[in-house]
């Protein structure tokens, strides 16, 4: 059996990639995909832990994370479509109507 640490390290790497992607990328869809990557790395962590300690609740949690990710994806894409209709661009640098 593959040891737990392998999964955790892989998940941590994926999570960091997601964070880096979110911070560095300028395209809304790519940023959005980075968030999904983060969520999936969390799913991997949950499943690995759940299998390691033989408690099913982690896998149940993954179901809920998946469903909520789908709901978030739907809302996020709808917001992005609405933004695109008014703006004709998906570059995050043009989200500048209000300055910080």
């Amino acid at each position, binding site marked *: 059996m593959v040891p737990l640490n392998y999964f955790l390290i892989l998940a941590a790497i994926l999570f960091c990639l997601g964070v880096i992607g979110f911070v560095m990328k300028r395209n809304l869809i790519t940023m959005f995909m980075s968030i999904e990557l983060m969520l999936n790395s969390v799913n991997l962590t*949950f499943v690995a832990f759940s299998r390691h300690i033989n408690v099913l609740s982690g896998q149940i949690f993954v179901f809920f994370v998946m469903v909520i990710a789908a709901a*978030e994806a739907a809302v996020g894409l709808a917001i992005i479509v609405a933004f695109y209709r008014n*703006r004709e661009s998906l570059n995050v640098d043009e989200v500048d109507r209000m300055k910080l």
Partner: protein
Amino acid sequence: MFNQFFQVSDIVAIYPQLLLALFGLGVLIVDLFLDRPWKVLNAFTALLGIGYATYALFQIRRFNVSAYNGAIVNDSFAVYFQFVFLIATALVIFISARYLSIEGEHRGDYYALILFSLIGMNFMVMGMDIITLYIALELMAVSEYILVGYLRTNRQSNEASLKFFLLGAFSSGILLYGISLLYGISGSTDLRVIGQKLAERPANDPVTLVALVTLAAGLLFKVAGVPFHQWLPDAYEGAPSPITAFISVAPKAAAFALTLRFLFIALKPLQVNWVPMLSVICVLTMTVGNITAISQSNIKRLLAYSSIAHAGYLMLGMIAGNDYGITGIAIYFLVYMFMNIGAWTLVVAMRRKDLIGDQIQDMSGMFQKNPAAAVLMLIFMLSLAGIPPTAGFIGKYYLFASVIQTKHYVLAVIAVLNAAISLYYYFRVVVVMFMNDKVDEEKMVLSPGVLTTLAVTLAFTLIIGIYPDPFIRFAQNSLSLFQ
């Protein structure tokens, strides 16, 4: 049909939420058969639902039920915060109808979404299980993303919702990573078990610290502590004003209640680690919020930064972590709900067909045009600044006293200095209203809904300030957090 998975007490514990869900779905369906002039009926349906839910909650307030195998605990802490959310939501629904008609976006799904996010917040304070808490948090957050972007053709609203969504989803991801590590450490999804397991581990275990830091970052995003606050001013400015009034009070209270549950139940063994971290963030949050608020010319952004500063004051109660601190947080949210929704209601009332009314200059000469409204704004601003005899003073008194009790004198001094800074920008608004000449003749239109909210918020801002005892006893319900 009842078996080992399900007891009658489970239904009783979530009865108010079931009613809210029923009414939320009902609003969606009824809205399909309503013509445009009748859309205001949706507001009444939603209010009816909130009324029923409040009544149901009142019935079960002393039951202290633990339902669904301990995943949901309706203790007096949860009941207290649920009352706050219900009142805040009702006040916001009162001020929504006219604003939405002016924007031409008066539809029933608005009220349904507000009710859904209310359900999410209620479960956030009742949950004892990380799965429940996460679902509740996301139910609240996803409804808010849509509500912030509710004005579909308005670019600012689009942008606000986009920023809010991206950073909100990002922070949920970080929070979830921390939760997954906690699950791995403890092998359980119950906050109390997590707390016990953490206590058995060595103090400076690296995995525990990573879990603590990611969890704290996620939670601080939700309560908008500096340096995780950038989304807040934009989201507050672009959102429809009634929604800003809503998200600046209820979801913030829910996020604080959630943070309290995490910090004082699951992460209690790590208190030595998170108190210094939180102290730094508390000072930053107060100072950055107040100093940035000084230079704002837009009233919505000014109130947004002021709400960041208020989150900083509230963190004092968490740092103290004693009875005074928790009572302080509870009473502060009750007070903050009334004074902040009051101030936002006046911003909402400024909106008319030809005026967005979110610049401070737009308020010029309000004393000449609407003396009553100007005096109300003065009272709310005094209360936000924490001047006695308004309610804001009671809240600040409890929070500041709590850190003095635990001998964090430096924090207390910084907090008092910050309160002094905040006087400056709150009074700038008042000065514009009272001293400047009016720019136009058109008076503010106060719809019946707006008047109701103003009356309620004004009454409680003054009553809590003058005779706080019953409200403090009410807020002390939240002390069940420690049991």
